[in-house]
């Protein structure tokens, strides 16, 4: 095997995609939306995980699209798909623990990997919940977060996004605040997901600055690697994280190889639809 040749000129977005793609294992069933997760998955399939299967919430299974879909329901997914399935059936694969990896994003993440993609400034007002700023909403995120065998979070690394506690808990991470339904007292106690009978949990956060993992014991987020090659420092990550984050043992991230970049730019997203060259 010839030695890997690393690329010298790449964007933070390309770096994110490459880092995420390396987390996909051969044979994984990967539940994706469109965007960077889809591109990361395609990269994995083209390199080290040819047996990985891509599926999306609109009901396409194991697509071999030749042009990049722009939405989950895009006709481009049709090419090479071996199954077209109702969404209720697709999501039931999650509930049957048949989905190995799910990708998630959001506007806020906390140290336990809880995500908010619903809204910030959440409050109850006159009997209704309202938001200071409303986003698109969960979609399938809460389902994926609660029932995929592992999840990978991709998001922009900013202090206002990496927060101590999410304003609205759309997608559960490792520890969640328990709802006490019987007494109607709302969230009272922080409990680990497994106490609620949940499997899975977030494996990594791939941000614009580095890759974070979750401590095996405390389940708190820590920095695994940082994009040194792009000028990112651990100090910068700490400064852009709204909670205390461990950085001991963090290593510079392995940059994209020339092969990875070539595939991204020439084969997977030659139009630059998501990578916006």
């Amino acid at each position, binding site marked *: 095997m010839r030695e890997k040749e690393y690329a010298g000129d790449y964007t933070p977005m390309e770096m994110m995609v490459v880092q995420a793609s390396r987390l996909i294992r051969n044979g994984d069933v990967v539940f994706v939306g469109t965007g960077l997760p889809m591109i990361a998955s395609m990269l994995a399939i083209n390199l080290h995980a040819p047996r990985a299967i891509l599926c999306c919430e609109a009901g396409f299974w194991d697509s071999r699209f030749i042009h990049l879909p722009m939405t989950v329901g895009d006709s481009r997914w049709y090419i090479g798909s071996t199954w077209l399935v109702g969404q209720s059936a697709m999501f039931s694969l999650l509930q049957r623990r048949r989905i190995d990896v799910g990708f998630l994003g959001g506007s806020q993440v906390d140290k336990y990997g809880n995500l908010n993609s619903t809204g910030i400034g959440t409050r109850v007002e006159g009997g209704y919940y309202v938001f200071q700023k409303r986003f698109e*909403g969960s979609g399938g995120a809460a389902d994926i977060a609660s029932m995929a065998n592992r999840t990978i979070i991709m998001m922009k690394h900013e202090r206002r996004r990496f927060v101590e506690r999410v304003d609205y808990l759309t*997608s559960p991470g490792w520890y969640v605040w328990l709802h006490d339904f019987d007494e109607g007292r709302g969230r009272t106690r922080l409990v680990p997901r497994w106490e609620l009978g949940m499997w899975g949990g977030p494996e990594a956060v791939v941000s614009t600055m580095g890759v974070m993992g979750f401590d095996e014991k405390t389940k708190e987020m820590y920095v695994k690697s940082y994009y040194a090659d792009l000028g990112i420092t651990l100090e910068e990550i700490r400064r852009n994280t709204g909670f205390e984050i461990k950085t001991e043992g963090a290593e510079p991230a392995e940059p994209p190889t020339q092969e990875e970049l070539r595939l991204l730019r020439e084969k997977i997203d030659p139009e630059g639809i998501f990578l916006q060259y």
Partner: protein
Amino acid sequence: MSKVMELREALRRFLKDGSVLCLGGISICRRPMAATYEIIRMGFRDLHLIDIAPGMPQILLALAGSASITEACWHGYELFGHPYMWRNLVERGPGETGYRFDDLSHYELSLRFVAGWLGVPFIPTYTARGSDLYNPEYDNLRDLRGVRRKVPRKKFAVMEDPFYGRGSVRLLPAANPDVTIIHAQMAAPDGTTRIYGAHFDDFVHAAAADHVIVTCEQVVSRESIAKDPEMNLIPSVYVDAVCEVPYGAHPGPCLGHYDYDPWFLCDLVERTREGEKDPGRFREWLEEWVLGVRDHEEYLEKLGVRRLLAIRADPTLGYAPNLPRRLDRLPPPP
């Protein structure tokens, strides 16, 4: 007995102010857009929308004032932009606007329709545990429960599994829309409906509804649709009306017929973005493309043949491979 009728006639017969309405397709794809425009044109009010992954039509119905309740998991245009104006509507809150939005997850909604399809009052699930979707303080339909028709008494219930000791499980109430509208590639006069490509959850949405309106690119004979019955998704029994509406999903794609209309989509999203500051910008759009247009044929005339040719699908691929797709540097519309 033929169920073929004009779209307006179908809506007049089956939809009412206050109806619970479900629209097929997903996000901006194979959505019954012609039907959505017609609903706005006909002035329906107080609609209660319930959909899995709503996009364009639900946003338009909210912004045009046709809908007063939405139960959904998401609202947006994906790559084409954020749900401008709609997010403002939600941020202002039901107290001010009279428009209620209640969040569920995608699978919760799917399962509610599955229960509706099967004809059972509820269905259990393990999904979304620990999520604020189950926060009892966050229930924007609370004061309608047990009051408004088809709003279940509770958002969910909790019980122990009596059979396998797998612990506690949530029960979700069935969803049975008054009307579901689907856009398909073809349907027969008896209502048999065929969809090429992913059918999203259109079968379940139709099967759960009390009435179903199918708009389709083309009406075909019973004899031809009975060939390869494996390909047919929705049987005659569920369908009340079949309306031939070519380009009925424009500006979204319809596999085998046409692709996105990126010019139209970008313009619509841009108008709503501007509309957040100046609502008049969106009212102009609505006037130009919906209210000021007599019907879908006039809408198509207005789009013009060159536009329709620019988005037509390659018959071997099902979409338009040469469609301009860099939204940040879209050439002028044809």
